């Protein structure tokens, strides 16, 4: 089983330069915050889902549906309790607070799905090379991309260790909270030890292949910003500007809400 989210498909989104995708991702962090009204935010959500459809990434929604579900349920409840508004609905809940909760839930969901699409269409090495092309030092980008690559491996090791310890009788289900936390030690220590122990071999292998031998390096992966990248970026900027203009003109806000 490969717990990485990357889906090896050939869509135009996949072929975009990683820098473009990073900008889009950052943009998706900003865009949902332009509007407060849940209906407007819903429009942004629909857009993101469509984009995910084009990128053939929606199948990964299956893997994070539980998180999304919890977000959609709990966030509005939380804000209904905590926030206050002008129009009372029932008990202590006001209409504006509930709406705020709904739109916040959507905003969170949008960023989650955007992140998921990013990971589904971008290889770790592309993340690294994108960061480097943006001016981040290679070693940092290398650490990030290697960490991404290693997470599934460590999860797999953790599962094997879990099997080994359960075979010896370790039972994680019983006991109170503190006891259950402590029972994780027979899992955490071997995971940590096995992984950290490989540091020296890994470092030796890196240096043996010339890591750090020269100040400059070349890249096998071919990335270049093309026309499509420019078009996509321009389209996004136009969209963002349009939304801001709408908001300034008075649409998409939420009156009467306080925290």
């Amino acid at each position, binding site marked *: 089983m490969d*717990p*990485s*989210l990357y889906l090896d498909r050939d869509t135009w989104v996949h072929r975009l330069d990683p820098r473009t995708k990073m900008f889009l991702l950052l943009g998706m962090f900003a865009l949902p*915050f332009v509007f407060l009204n849940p209906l407007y935010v819903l429009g942004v959500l629909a857009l993101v889902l469509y984009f995910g459809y084009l990128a053939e990434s929606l199948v990964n929604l299956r*893997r*994070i549906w539980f*998180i*999304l579900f*919890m*977000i959609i*349920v*709990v*966030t509005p409840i*939380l804000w209904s309790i*905590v926030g206050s508004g002008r129009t009372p609905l029932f008990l202590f809940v006001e209409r504006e607070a509930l709406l705020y909760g709904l739109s*916040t839930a959507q*905003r*969170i969901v949008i*960023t*989650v799905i*955007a*992140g*998921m699409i990013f*990971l589904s269409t971008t290889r770790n090495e592309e993340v690294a090379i994108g960061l480097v092309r943006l001016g981040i*030092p290679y*070693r*940092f980008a*290398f*650490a*990030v991309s*290697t*960490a*991404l690559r*290693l*997470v599934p*491996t*460590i*999860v797999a090791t*953790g599962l094997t260790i879990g099997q080994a310890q359960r075979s010896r009788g370790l039972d994680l289900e019983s006991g109170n909270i*503190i006891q259950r*936390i*402590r029972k*994780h*030690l027979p899992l*955490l*220590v071997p*995971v*940590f*030890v096995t*992984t*950290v*122990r490989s*540091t*020296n071999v*890994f470092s030796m292998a*890196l240096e043996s292949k010339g*890591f*750090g031998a020269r100040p400059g390096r070349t890249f096998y992966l071919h990335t270049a910003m093309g026309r499509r990248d420019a078009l996509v970026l321009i389209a996004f900027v136009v969209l963002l500007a349009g939304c801001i203009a709408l908001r300034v003109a008075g649409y998409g806000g939420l009156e009467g809400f*306080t*925290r």
Partner: protein
Amino acid sequence: MKEVFAMWRHTQLVVLVALSAAIYAAVLIPFKGFPIVPGYIELRPANAFPIVFGLLFGPAGVWGSAIGNTIGDFVGGTLTVGSVGGFVGNFFLALLPYKMWSVFFRRDENIETNVDSGKKFGVYILVTILASTVCAVIIAWWVDLLGLFPFRVFFALILFNNAIMAGVLGPVLLLALYPRVKRWGLLWTEIMEPEEVSSSRLQRSGAILVWVGGIGGAAVGLILSLTGAATMGVGVGIVLIPFMIAILVGAFMLGGREQVEAAQEMLEGEGSEA
């Protein structure tokens, strides 16, 4: 802060950044399914890790914790703008313990970052509380500023989560891992050179600044948030800015060099022969 940037020259530390980030993320992800505040706070045994990583791997643990938290958010499906706060928060969560450690020990005492004595355990608890507070303040401030969640809710939950996990699991992990990491030659104090680490001349003042910024910021933030004396998030956010600055400046003033010097001395003691 010198060592935070100088560390990148050492291959082993670069690898440790990747490994600690990966371990942190890998242990975070299975627990994403037990949310307290879904999308933001879960029951996380892994919260003990940044402090342990910082004490063992120094700056490598710092970057590793920050990156690991972000990857955990990415892959676990909880990536939001709040994750920026998570990055910075975890950065400080791992940074402060090993930096503040130096403040409590004199030249002649054993300064190794293990909890194998009563005094060391006490110091551990103290720096854990401070680091957890600062981490909680940073993240809660950021999230409140963005209007996503009220300061008081987030602060309490993060502080609670961090402090409990670091307090319960941390010492046991550290006791188990320190001797092994040392045996493998992977303690940051044995890999880096003293000149690469910030000097500790100003560390007393730096420590005070960080405490004031952290505890003060927490107190003020809670009061404002609880009494509703601020309008929207921007109020709490702006008032807390001086405290954030205090934390940042204080962190730059902290040292750590003597820990590396002490480690080098121990190494030379071992290797000396006629």
